[in-house]
């Protein structure tokens, strides 16, 4: 399968990656090669095979519903790009 520049831009948007036309053109060849490469899977004998999500087929472990983590809000907010009054700041969303 091959992807063109507009398809690359569509995937970039879904991926939340800013990308101009020149950059999209640069990615198109590599992405087309990768999609062509993974098409080898089409020949696999997988009729009736159960998909494998975990190497040991482990079940999700559950724990008691109890508080185990301390409040470290200050430490976590100290490394944020912009905070004010205990809140993370982003550009205005609602006018």
């Amino acid at each position, binding site marked *: 399968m091959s992807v063109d520049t507009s398809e690359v831009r569509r995937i970039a948007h879904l991926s*939340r990656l800013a990308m101009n036309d020149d950059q999209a053109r640069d990615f198109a060849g590599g992405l087309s090669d990768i999609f062509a490469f993974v098409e080898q*899977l*089409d020949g696999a004998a997988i009729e009736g095979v159960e998909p494998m999500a975990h190497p040991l087929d482990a079940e999700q472990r559950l724990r008691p519903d109890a508080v185990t983590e301390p409040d470290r809000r200050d430490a976590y907010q100290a490394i944020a790009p912009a905070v004010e009054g205990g809140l993370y700041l982003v550009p205005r969303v609602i006018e």
Partner: protein
Amino acid sequence: MAQETLSGWVRKLQAREISSRELTQLYLDRIERLDPQLNSFITVTAEQALAQADAADARLAQGEQTPLLGVPIAQKDIFCTEGVRTSCGSRMLDPFVSPYNATVVERMNAAGAVMLGKTNMDEFAMGSSNETSFYGPVRNPWDTERVPGGSSGGSAAAVGARLVPGATGTDTGGSIRQPAAFCGITGLKPTYGRVSRYGMIAFASSLDQGGPMAATAEDCGRMLNAMAGFDERDSTSVERPAEDFTAGLNQDLKGLRIGLPTEFFGEAGLDERVRGVIDAAIEVLKGRGAEVREVGLPNSHLSVPAYYVVAPAECSSNLARFDGVRYGYRCENPEDLMDLYTRSRGEGFGDEVKRRIMVGTYVLSAGYYDAYYLKAQKVRRIIADDFRRAFADVDVLLAPTTPELPFALGAKADPVSMYLSDIYTIAANLAGLPAMSLPAGEIDGLPVGLQLIGNYFDEARLLGVAHQYQQETDWHTRVPAAFA
């Protein structure tokens, strides 16, 4: 001096022949003098290391004998270290000073290890040459015009040049074993779930596994003893009793059944000289009593294509957390929230990371899930089933680690040719099996790695086979001339 192994240093420290401070200073001096040729460290934590060394010396004076007490190590910059920049090789995390320690870091601190710093790596562990790092490529100590492999290339180069006696790595598709092979050291990827992923920045969560990298199998066993163990903070951590991974070192090889997967020897692309090295290693193991037979892994040719669906899918999901809001890189003057997200990510990630996020986003997008992701998950099962059948007849599998010698910087410009350098390592990740690489020869002054793949939880046996091989050979003792 630089020849001494991690295990040798532990013995010398316990015998009080050298203090941890002296040893730490010795390696810090080597890093300062020699690392400019390699770029294997992103961050050197000299002051903290000396403080840790003094604390270790005080504990040694009390007669304490914890497994890594006073011995210098390095952490791959994918493991979160409290108060120390944890970049993951990316501009995105260049400003990130972790507020907490990874479990691996906690456990190694508790075992008394002295951290010298954080090693360079491919960005977010995505690469096989260490050329995708935001901090510039790492160079191979055996030939600085060549790559050290990746993604744990900084750890491999640092240990190969003896700038540190041991370092951690992570292996999602070969990222411990391939650089270990390229830099002439020993590295082990444990069974999936052995080593906690808590605080290990996620790439592909169903494949990622941390492990040790050092000169010898004994060193790796000693490090793994400190690193491994159940952790309730990692939901995929395996609940098993603690195990001594050095317990099998002195087990002789009489009657050991070694399988040679025909597919790993027959395929085009295997350098004949590499094959010659592997054949010679097989003879050494036979000489110590091992029995060798061929086995089939008929679906192994599907490993790399399956991996390049599963790993990007998981990566696109894991890396969605980097949004420019809570930590890490944020673009200047965002116009609105969408601009904040897309430009922070567009400017913060490098090209290979973007490529994999886009592949993952595409294969998971509406209408394509069955054609790609579900199919790859099914292929993953038939690959794992091949191994199960093989291990019914043999105890370990033996193969080359890589099809070729360390390549020149810039030699693999197109993504798919780079991906194929992991052709022999990826299957073990898909199946979740333990696997290791150890030095087994040299061609034109470049090291060649031998790969051993074990059954689930059989790390002690793998390390034992490697140790027995290292009793008979001296490849693991060789240091590149410029760093001797």
